[in-house]
């Protein structure tokens, strides 16, 4: 792997992100439920991780190197549509299956379930648990001197959960340098802005005070995401990458609007959203 993204890779990733956004809007529209805002803010990070940074493969469970795969944990499990989109893109299951999202009998449960779908490491959805889970995985890998990394994706509203801070302490206490946490700082939660509901700021200073290495980036810039991961991998401490993002990114009327946290677009909204994403 390169230390920097090539211009052609940047172009490909940005193209992929547009396709993922279309998938997300289509899936949530078809399911008539889901979380457009927090899925659309997560796209670039997932694309960079799965396409350029993580060691993984849908066929790896047939290989002796399966244990060496990097692990990804979606603590903000409501961004499942984005995760399913990138997993389908990477060949974990056929793309047509995306349209079964949230429907009876589907492998693509509303929130990711490892008992339903290969490629999901752990079941998530109930907020505040993914970071502890990631710490456990990271500890297990360390015991085995396994060089794999653990990536966990946490929402900013989720940082209000007390158990997150238990895990933050856990990671620094055990010096989990194989743990990299993305915090999707889209600044909104269901009931309003994170500042108004219960402020988590200054998040960078808090995490630093807890012993973490902190990098703040534009969470929609694929190069910044890639570079931050390269730096994080060299650190001798757990790293938090605070990704400044826009909730609903890519669909103008969903952007920065908490009304679109957990609402499916109707047919008219869907047509407008798709038209914008096709541009």
């Amino acid at each position, binding site marked *: 792997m390169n230390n920097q993204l090539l211009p052609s890779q940047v172009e490909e990733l940005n193209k992929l992100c547009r396709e993922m956004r279309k998938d997300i809007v289509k899936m949530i529209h078809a399911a008539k439920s889901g979380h457009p805002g927090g899925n659309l803010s997560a796209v670039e990070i997932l694309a960079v991780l799965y396409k350029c940074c993580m060691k993984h493969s849908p066929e790896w469970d047939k290989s002796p190197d399966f244990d060496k795969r990097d692990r990804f944990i979606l603590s903000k499990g409501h961004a499942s549509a984005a995760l399913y989109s990138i997993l389908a893109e990477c060949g974990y299951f056929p793309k047509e299956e995306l349209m079964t999202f949230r429907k009876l009998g589907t492998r693509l449960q509303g929130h990711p379930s490892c008992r339903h779908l290969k490629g999901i490491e*752990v*079941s998530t959805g109930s907020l505040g648990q993914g970071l502890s889970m990631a*710490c*456990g995985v990271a500890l297990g890998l360390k*015991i085995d001197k396994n060089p794999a990394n653990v990536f966990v994706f946490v929402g900013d509203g989720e940082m209000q959960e007390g*158990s997150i801070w238990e*895990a933050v302490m*856990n990671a620094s206490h055990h010096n989990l340098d194989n743990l990299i946490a993305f915090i999707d700082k889209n600044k909104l939660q269901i009931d309003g802005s994170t500042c108004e509901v219960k402020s988590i700021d200054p998040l960078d200073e808090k995490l630093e005070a807890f012993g973490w290495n902190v990098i703040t980036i534009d969470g929609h810039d694929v190069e910044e995401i890639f570079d931050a991961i390269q730096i994080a991998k060299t650190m001798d401490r757990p790293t938090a990458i605070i990704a400044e993002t826009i909730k609903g990114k890519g669909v103008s009327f969903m952007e920065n609007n908490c009304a679109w946290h957990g609402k499916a677009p109707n047919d008219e909204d869907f047509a407008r959203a798709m038209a914008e994403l096709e541009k």
Partner: protein
Amino acid sequence: MIKILQGKDREKKSIRSEYGKTLVELGKSNPNIVALDADLSCSTQTAMFGKEFPERFFNMGIAEQDAMTTAAGLSTTGKIPFVSTFAMFATGRAWEQIRNSICYPRFNVKIVATHGGITVGEDGASHQALEDVAIMRDIPNMTVIVPADCTETREVIKFAAEYDGPVYIRLARTNVPNIFDPETYKFDLKKALVVREGKDVTLITNGETLVEALDCAELLEKVGIDAEVIHMPVVKPVDVDTIVESAKKTQNVITIENHSIIGALGSAICETLSENHPVKVKRIGINDQFGQSGEQRELMNFYGLTGEKLAERITKYLKK
């Protein structure tokens, strides 16, 4: 046949120490076993494991939610985590972590909680878990076991290490008389044990109250009541056949447990019998109330759970 020890052979021993020792033994033969605690390792006795295997022991501090979910994560790397703290905090504080991060994905995590029941003693109601078995039993994929003595605790811990899936094991704080002969005892997940045969009434119990039920049965014999005593360490899954068979014989069932009468052993028996062989069931335990401070034996007496008190209560009940 499992031999039941009698009289002086029933040596009083610490269930918690037995757990600690067994875990160390297992750790020696199985490098995948890891232990987690939440700042109570000297009480739960996981400190023994920590001393022997510091690289496989994680004190998570006073953070039960983190402890449970970290254990879940560890299990995904092939480790077999044993998580211990007091039953109150293990099940109460971290219930949703156990449900969503351990049982839903069916991860291989063993929760061994100590200080179950009223016999926590002087610490009082805030620390006396009277609801833990109920709230663990309710979760799909969970196996729930309440061993009665050291012999059984040892075998149950060994079983849990072998079994693939989440297990909740509830241990008492107290030193309990050893009832089962270690040479002949075998743990069977699918089997409740008829530890005394009788024809007039069936007493079903587990954990610390087994010895009380046996004492009670002897006292009942003196007043002409022939009680059958069934020990049901596995509250989930229920051994339906043994329970139904006994109920058919005696037509009269009483459950005895160091737990709220709502949701745990008593409820499991009521559910089983009402579906399979409806007979009247009397539930004895803590009656939908909080506990209080007191010495262990005083509390058992106050809440009517000693052999003597049980015999009095049951005699009165059967005469009605």
